[in-house]
């Protein structure tokens, strides 16, 4: 039986994706049906990598990080730095450090490729097998660099580390944070999910034949692959007693593994089902208590079928769900965080996003998937994220003013 989670107040949150920078812009894009995907013309080193796919690349990351953060300079950290200053998150994190004391604020950062683009660039400029002097491995490529930057930006001195579990990273950070608070190691945790484009990701997914040549169509009968995206999102989680005015709580989280195959999900979504049921148990809830499910919904043939079957087994026909990757693309290690923030937008604004590009829902996927957005107040939402290696994570967020569970 899954342990009951300690509900944590979400005292600040933000997300920046191709569809919008910050919560307001993202919500507007969701309401307007305005996608952030464009034909791929990624050109980090001059030559254009015109892979036949659409991607959600984020503009405006040309400026290097200012001092004293220069050593951390790489695309991933530039994106993190730009994003965390929106919606008051950096300010809130610094205030939490003041309020709780630096040692009581932890940082858990999800990323899959970190500063890999920077390393790719350094290899292109290598001379006699040596990389340029300017390349800072520990503050760019190494997976820890984001956590270290965030700790330095906020002044947090509690445990700071990276979770890197491919496409579930940005979701699993929430569960890790709950453990830190429940175990008495922290009173507040800044969780993050940041991932950015690089050649390895682009050509790697292409070689796996997982990229769609069109904007992705989650859960469509004709879906034919994913659209990659970039993203950066953050949430500040605190003990409820310390944040009585918070509007949203993380009510529970569930995690599981598929133990099936490294790059294909369990065909019936058994691991996904486990993660969802564990998240509900952790929150003390029944499936019928959930008003909206944000699907992982990558638009790969395999994921949407497996996830759809699993969602239908758990929630039946009653609970509306959607995939928002048609707006943001699949932001890999950031996806779980982007979609946690989108799920929270649904709670805050009484708006359930539809599924962009879904024209002909695949009946084989079974789950009730919204094509269009719906104006509706819901009290509790669930968000799924699944990754390579068969790693599954589900989160439940609830309005703070509604009893979180039995």
């Amino acid at each position, binding site marked *: 039986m899954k342990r009951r989670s300690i509900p944590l107040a979400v005292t600040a949150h933000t997300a920046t994706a191709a569809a919008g920078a910050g919560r307001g812009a993202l919500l507007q894009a969701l309401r307007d049906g305005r996608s952030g995907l464009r034909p791929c013309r990624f050109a980090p080193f001059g030559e254009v990598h015109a892979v036949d796919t659409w991607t959600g690349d984020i503009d405006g990351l040309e400026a290097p990080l200012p001092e004293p953060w220069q050593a951390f300079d790489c695309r991933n950290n530039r994106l993190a730095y730009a994003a965390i200053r929106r919606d008051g998150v950096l300010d809130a994190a610094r205030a939490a450090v003041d309020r709780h004391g630096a040692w009581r604020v932890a940082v858990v950062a999800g990323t899959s490729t970190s500063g890999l683009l920077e390393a790719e660039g350094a290899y292109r400029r290598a001379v006699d097998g040596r990389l340029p002097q300017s390349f800072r491995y520990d503050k760019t490529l190494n997976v820890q660099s984001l956590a*270290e930057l965030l700790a330095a930006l906020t002044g947090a001195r509690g445990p700071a580390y990276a979770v890197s579990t491919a496409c579930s990273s940005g979701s699993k950070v929430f569960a890790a944070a709950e453990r830190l608070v429940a175990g008495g190691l922290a009173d507040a945790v800044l969780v993050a999910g940041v991932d950015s484009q690089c050649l390895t990701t682009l050509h790697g997914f292409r*070689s796996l034949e997982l990229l769609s040549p069109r904007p992705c169509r989650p859960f469509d009968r004709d879906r034919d692959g994913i659209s990659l995206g970039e993203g950066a999102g953050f949430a500040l989680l605190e003990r409820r007693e310390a944040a009585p005015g918070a509007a949203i709580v993380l009510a529970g989280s569930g995690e599981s593994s598929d133990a099936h195959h490294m790059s294909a999900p369990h065909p019936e979504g058994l691991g996904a089902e486990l993660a969802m049921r564990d998240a509900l148990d952790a929150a003390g809830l029944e499936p019928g208590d959930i008003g909206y499910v944000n699907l992982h919904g990558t638009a790969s043939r395999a994921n949407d079928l497996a996830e759809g079957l699993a969602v239908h087994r758990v929630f039946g026909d009653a609970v509306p769900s959607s995939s928002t990757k048609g707006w943001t693309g699949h932001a890999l290690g950031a996806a779980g965080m982007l979609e946690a923030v989108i799920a929270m937008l649904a709670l805050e604004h009484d708006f359930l996003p539809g599924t962009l590009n879904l024209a002909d829902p695949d009946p084989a996927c079974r789950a009730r998937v919204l094509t269009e957005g719906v104006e509706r107040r819901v009290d509790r939402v669930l968000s799924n994220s699944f990754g390579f290696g068969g790693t599954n994570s589900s989160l439940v967020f609830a309005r703070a003013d509604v009893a979180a569970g039995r």
Partner: protein
Amino acid sequence: MMRCHVTGVGLWGPGLPGWPAAVEMLRGQAPWVHADAARPAAAALPPAERRRATQATRVAVTVAGEAIAAAGADPSSMPSVFASSASNPDIIDEMCAMLATGRHDLSPTRFHNSVHNSPAGYLGIAVGSRQPSTSLGAFDSSAAAALLDAALQVSLDGRPVTLVSCDLPYPGPLGTVRPVLGTWGVALVLDGAAHAPDDARLTLRYGAHRPATTLDDARLEQARLDNPTARLLPILRALACREDADVDLDFGPQATLTVTVRHG
């Protein structure tokens, strides 16, 4: 403060193809011969996965298997925590080098093996566990971070957890800026209660930075500094010698994870 017991240990290191060999060496009963160890068996991996598995995965599965067998635990029922500073540095080097020449035909298998959590994914397949698995990184403190999260899970959920830490060198240009020496893998099964009377009890405390605990033997001390997983050596030495110890592990530049090891 968190508390747990060590009910099983697995190890792979230079010239150390298993925990019994490491125990002999750490007790001073056998000299440490830095031989290139035979390839880790990773017997628990199904043949198709074993063919595709990276060195890191083979080490992780091998040491986890050893620890789980020693603990007499049922691996399919256990969550796992995997740690590495960079789990597949050889693949990262290979792909960066290929891309730098203008070639874009990355191997799909090598690509999906490049994710930080790929050893953990293979481990889950090997033991058939649907329990949660996480993969962490914290640069030179990766093992400390994993110890922290694993101990938290044991304390909160009251069930055993497998911790696996594995680090190997970067070949090529990245190896010149990130010198990791040797291939080390360590696995610990941590449980809320002891199984055997001499199972060590660990207590963990996170706090302000203190100098990391060093080892008296010069070669062991060098190994500890040369490989992030080998940062666990002072704890392993205490376990091998059945001695009590207070071990300070670096946890980032400003903090320390103090691990007290008690026997009996």
